[in-house]
């Protein structure tokens, strides 16, 4: 494909986030468009005209006003948008096809380096990989030449590439819990790299993948140079799922999975035991996390809205601030908390039960079908939005 005729999701998001002027023409059908759209950190000027309208009446290109701005054309997989982009170019409009369409948008991982204080910055680094299309966050942590990955998505090559670019070797792949909203890349990434796949010992007997169990208080050591190593400590935080685990990286960064987010908490109902898991989650939020100081930085596995991305591109929040602002954390009894959960939550998407079964390893899925399962944003939070 001619480079002047095509662009990538990465470039589209760069332009959108930087506020560069362009028009995004989405040519999917109405249902697809209503269900899930590209979101930039700044408002994207968007026009929606299904591609088959252009097939019926190519004269519609006149509706795509062009004041010499570039038009980026987007569809589900990149085929129909290529057709429309060509029509526009034939009419003299500067138009580019967004390669791979919404499938590529859903797979794209944007790597952002988490800023650390000076005492930690010279020892290790934390990369947050933001899966913009779904609001999923995963992490690469490097110290010396050793790296671990936490909560990888299906697009595993992106992690392998980043670890290589950092000059490190992957020594462990971790999942904070059995995800319901997206397929874990953990087993495949572990296989690909030879690293072990690690999950909490309490994850449950249904898990069919070969995992190295991790337990409360256990420390994963990265780097072996004197004074240059890093301890990642396992903190059991059950509730969103019985095996949900957090990882304390160094002294003040806590990877919380879906236990607590920057503007909400994880929903405890995805296993169908909202009362039981809700009670456990309440205990985790107030007793377990309650023991941690206010200045601990929470690095979650999800966000619900692009507004949660900070100016530096990172999704993170101080625990003290989160404790003060998240509504569900103001509830002061487990009973009340469970009632609030029951009344606030709507039924999760039906596909979640199949994603859970695949992440447990009890069933398998073809790559093409996997992409269909993962369409749309995550619905893992119990609050905020």
């Amino acid at each position, binding site marked *: 494909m001619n480079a002047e005729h095509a662009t990538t999701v990465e470039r589209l998001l760069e332009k959108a986030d930087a506020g560069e002027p362009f028009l995004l023409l989405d040519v999917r059908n109405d249902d*697809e468009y209503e269900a899930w759209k590209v979101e930039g950190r700044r408002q994207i000027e968007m026009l929606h005209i299904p591609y*088959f309208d252009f097939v019926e009446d190519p004269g519609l290109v006149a509706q795509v006003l062009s004041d010499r701005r570039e038009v980026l054309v987007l569809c589900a*997989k990149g085929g129909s948008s290529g057709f429309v982009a060509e029509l526009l170019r034939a009419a003299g409009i500067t138009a580019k096809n967004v390669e791979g369409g919404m499938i590529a948008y859903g797979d794209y991982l944007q790597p952002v380096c988490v800023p650390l204080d000076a005492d930690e910055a010279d020892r290790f680094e934390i990369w947050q990989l933001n899966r913009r299309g779904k609001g999923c966050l995963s992490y690469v942590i490097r110290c010396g030449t050793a790296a671990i990955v936490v909560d990888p998505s299906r697009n595993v090559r992106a992690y392998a590439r980043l670890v290589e670019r950092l000059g490190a070797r992957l020594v462990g792949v971790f999942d904070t819990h059995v995800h319901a909203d997206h397929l874990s890349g953990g087993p495949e990434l572990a296989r690909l790299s030879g690293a072990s796949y690690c999950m909490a010992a309490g994850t449950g007997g249904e898990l069919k993948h070969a995992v190295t169990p991790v337990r409360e208080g256990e420390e994963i050591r990265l780097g072996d140079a004197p004074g240059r190593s890093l301890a990642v400590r396992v903190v059991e935080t059950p509730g969103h799922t019985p095996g949900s685990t957090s990882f304390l990286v160094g002294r003040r960064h806590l990877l919380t999975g879906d236990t607590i987010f920057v503007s909400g908490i994880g929903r405890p109902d995805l296993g169908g035991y909202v009362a039981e898991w809700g009670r456990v989650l309440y205990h985790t939020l107030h007793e377990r996390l309650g023991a941690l100081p206010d200045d601990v930085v929470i690095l979650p596995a999800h966000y619900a809205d692009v507004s949660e991305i900070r100016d530096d591109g990172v999704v993170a929040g101080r625990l003290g601030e989160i404790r003060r602002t998240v509504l569900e954390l103001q509830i002061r009894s487990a009973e009340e908390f469970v009632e609030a959960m029951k009344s606030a939550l709507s039924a999760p998407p039906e596909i979640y039960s199949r994603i859970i079964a695949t992440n447990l390893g009890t069933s398998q899925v073809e790559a093409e079908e996997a992409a269909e399962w993962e369409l749309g944003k995550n619905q893992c939070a119990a609050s905020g939005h």
Partner: protein
Amino acid sequence: MSIKILDAKGLKCPMPIIKAKKEIDAMSPGDLLEIHATDPGSVADFQGWSKMSKTAVLKDQRTEGGSDGKPVYIHVLERR
């Protein structure tokens, strides 16, 4: 009145609709065009297109099992 079958199996969007439009435009009012497609997205797209098409009316949509066991989406259009 005639019935024509358009084999669009294996074609990805936008091709099933582009080909269907070309065929239907060349037909006479009342003629039927049956499109056999394997792209699941074609179901919603034929509904959307036929709603605004000046020449095609969607008469029927059904799914059958193909020879390889994968579904074939059949769309029946009438020339307006």
